[in-house]
């Protein structure tokens, strides 16, 4: 039996500590891990909890991130609760195994502390790794602060392990901005948290020898397509279950989560669509702009990046005149990946808003309230003109000459 951990009603935790406390409360059976900045403390803390009897689990320190996810796959197929954490290069090294984990429908929870991808080498945050994972068949949830990193990690176990879902889940948080900044966090009591997550209920357990299972069989053109289609269906079908888990979480915590979080959108004329800590910055900017200049600004934040909430994004934005989609990742010769998703959601609406793409904050570059206000005001100018008056894709906060691409064809 695990030792009792002394918890206050309000704790001052950073995002990494918050995520690791969720692993403790869920009593994760196996963590196979490899260190990388800025996610390292999550697994270090798990090791501490094991070393001090707070968790009766196995901490397997492997020799690389590829092995970390490989160990997680083997452990998960052996019928228990499994989690790990990574960032950036580590995430990239895991990439092969991410597909294998989701293809085998293993409910591993991966805490991804977002960080830029080299080259150049950079330990600070952007969303390059989040987007790299976008087709890997994992559910991807996004926390905007430390409290949410904790809450969503608990929800992630409940979602992934649901027998109608059985998919691995990533919980993202912004490197350093969330992971290393201490904030007030209100944890659940241990029993409440554990009861919310529940006992692990294995499916196709490799350690149940009364019913042998084959994991990771080979398929070619005769079955591969069907498997991938089913996997896609499982992701799409997880949407109401995610909503259900969020609703249950509200019952035990009083904190309400949605797959798309809207802020001041009821009467908004212009909007910013964002992920991560930028959401809070944009919310402050929207609030101030309304008070200072009467601009009807709102924020649409994506909590659930996969499965992508197309309907909710469309519903949130269809009555807005002008929208800025903020991509914290290099577009690499295209429009931002996030921009493409949001645009796709808006394409079929009758009163399609004007949409621009801002590339910002790469490698941890600060994103300020002033910058968010500037973007809102630019949206207001588009809305008033009835067309996009600037380049459609712009780099925001870049030193030196401004960088923008693609012009609208006007009138």
């Amino acid at each position, binding site marked *: 039996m695990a030792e009792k951990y002394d918890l206050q009603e309000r704790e001052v935790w950073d995002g990494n500590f918050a995520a690791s406390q969720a692993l403790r409360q869920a009593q994760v059976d196996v963590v196979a891990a490899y260190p990388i900045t800025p996610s390292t403390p999550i697994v270090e803390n798990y090791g501490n909890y094991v070393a001090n009897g707070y968790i009766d689990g*196995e901490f397997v320190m492997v020799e690389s991130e590829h092995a970390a996810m490989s160990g997680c796959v083997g*452990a998960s197929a*052996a019928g*228990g609760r499994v989690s790990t954490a990574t960032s950036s290069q580590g995430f990239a090294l895991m990439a*092969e195994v991410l597909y294998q984990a989701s293809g085998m429908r293993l409910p591993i929870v991966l805490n991804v502390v977002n960080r830029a991808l080299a080259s150049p080498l950079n330990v600070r945050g952007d969303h390059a790794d989040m987007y790299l994972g976008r087709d890997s068949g994992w559910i991807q949830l996004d926390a905007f602060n430390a409290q949410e990193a904790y809450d969503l990690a608990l929800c992630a176990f409940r979602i992934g392990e649901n027998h109608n879902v059985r998919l691995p889940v990533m919980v993202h948080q912004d490197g350093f901005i969330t992971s290393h900044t201490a904030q007030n966090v209100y944890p659940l009591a241990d029993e409440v948290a554990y009861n919310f997550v529940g006992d692990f209920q294995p499916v196709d357990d490799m350690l149940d*020898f009364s019913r042998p299972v*084959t994991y990771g*069989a080979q398929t070619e053109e005769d079955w591969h397509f069907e498997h991938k289609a089913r996997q896609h269906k499982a992701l799409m079908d997880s949407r109401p279950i995610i909503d259900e888990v969020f609703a249950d979480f509200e019952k035990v915590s009083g904190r309400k989560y949605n797959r798309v979080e809207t802020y001041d959108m009821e009467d908004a004329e212009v909007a910013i669509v964002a992920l991560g800590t930028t959401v809070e910055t944009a919310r402050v900017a929207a609030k101030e702009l309304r008070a200072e200049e009467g601009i009807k600004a709102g924020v649409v934040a994506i909590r659930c990046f996969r499965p992508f909430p197309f309907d909710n994004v469309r519903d949130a934005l269809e009555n807005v005149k002008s929208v800025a989609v903020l991509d914290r990742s290099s577009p690499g010769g295209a429009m931002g990946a996030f921009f493409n998703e949001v645009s796709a959601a808006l394409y079929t609406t009758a009163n399609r808003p004007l949409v621009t793409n801002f590339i910002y904050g790469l490698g941890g570059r600060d994103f300020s309230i002033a910058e968010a206000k500037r973007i809102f005001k630019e949206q207001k100018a588009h809305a008033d003109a009835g067309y996009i008056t600037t380049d459609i894709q712009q780099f925001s906060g870049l030193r030196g000459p401004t960088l923008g691409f693609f012009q609208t064809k006007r009138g």
Partner: protein
Amino acid sequence: MAITSIKNLKDFSTNNDRFEGAHTLCPGCAHSMIVRELMNCTDDNLVISTNTGCLEVSTAVYPFTSWDTSWIHIGFENAATAVSGAEAMHKARKRKGTLKDNDAPVKFVAFGGDGSTFDIGFQWLSGAVERGHDFTYICLDNENYANTGGQRSSATPIGATTSTAQAGSHSYGKKEKKKDIVAIMAAHGAPYVAQLAPNKWKSMAKGFQKALETEGPCFINTVSPCCTEWKFDPKDTIGITDLATDSLMFPVYEIIDGHELNILYRPKNIITVEEYMGAQGRYKHLFKPEYRHVIDQVQKDVNEYWDYLQRREEARV
């Protein structure tokens, strides 16, 4: 411990049908013989992981499986890690009492080809052994990447031709020495390491049993002649294996706790490597006069290695 007693080959080979014959390995492929020996030498529950390669693609083609036990394949390089993850989960669940049958003995086994063991998966294997998981890793050493059409691996011997170590008018094929994987794994501190061969089936089964009984990570390299890439008639697999062990190209021996070396098979009549090579298409070009020195070099290396093994056996170091 549910180790099966081995009286005669007939009983042994029909002991336990946990590896179904209806797979699609080539007729004459030694992989299946080795896998059957492993599965027949114990009645314990088995969790088996397999690297990508001939064995994997031929035995679990959806919706079929040859494995009447828990089996997992993830990738080309990481079978050692998958099985070590499962082993860690077993420990955690046994402590918590959440297993279906908490007392049944379970053995963890990984199979890799020489490509996945000597090359791409070496890091994963090294890590899993260093961490001391209780599992047995068995390398099916056919000295090439058979599944992708016979490319060189670092297990391919000098002088063999492969699809990426070509023999031609300017080349005699592979030029680099085969990695000494057994010594490398013994140096990891693995408590039981061996090189075994399916023609010496009794010593192979006993070696497997020792590895399964030994707590901690054990490593076994098995010669696994590949009729397709070595180019011999499928009916000759065991005959070729006889030549491999009698020429000492594949000496059969074990190393216990990194120092106690025991030779498990001493050929009464040691044959030349030339005789072994002559029976296989992959060495055909070496029989041209200009490549004679290659055969001589291989013979010299084999003699020296046999000497070394005997000296180590005597010295217990």
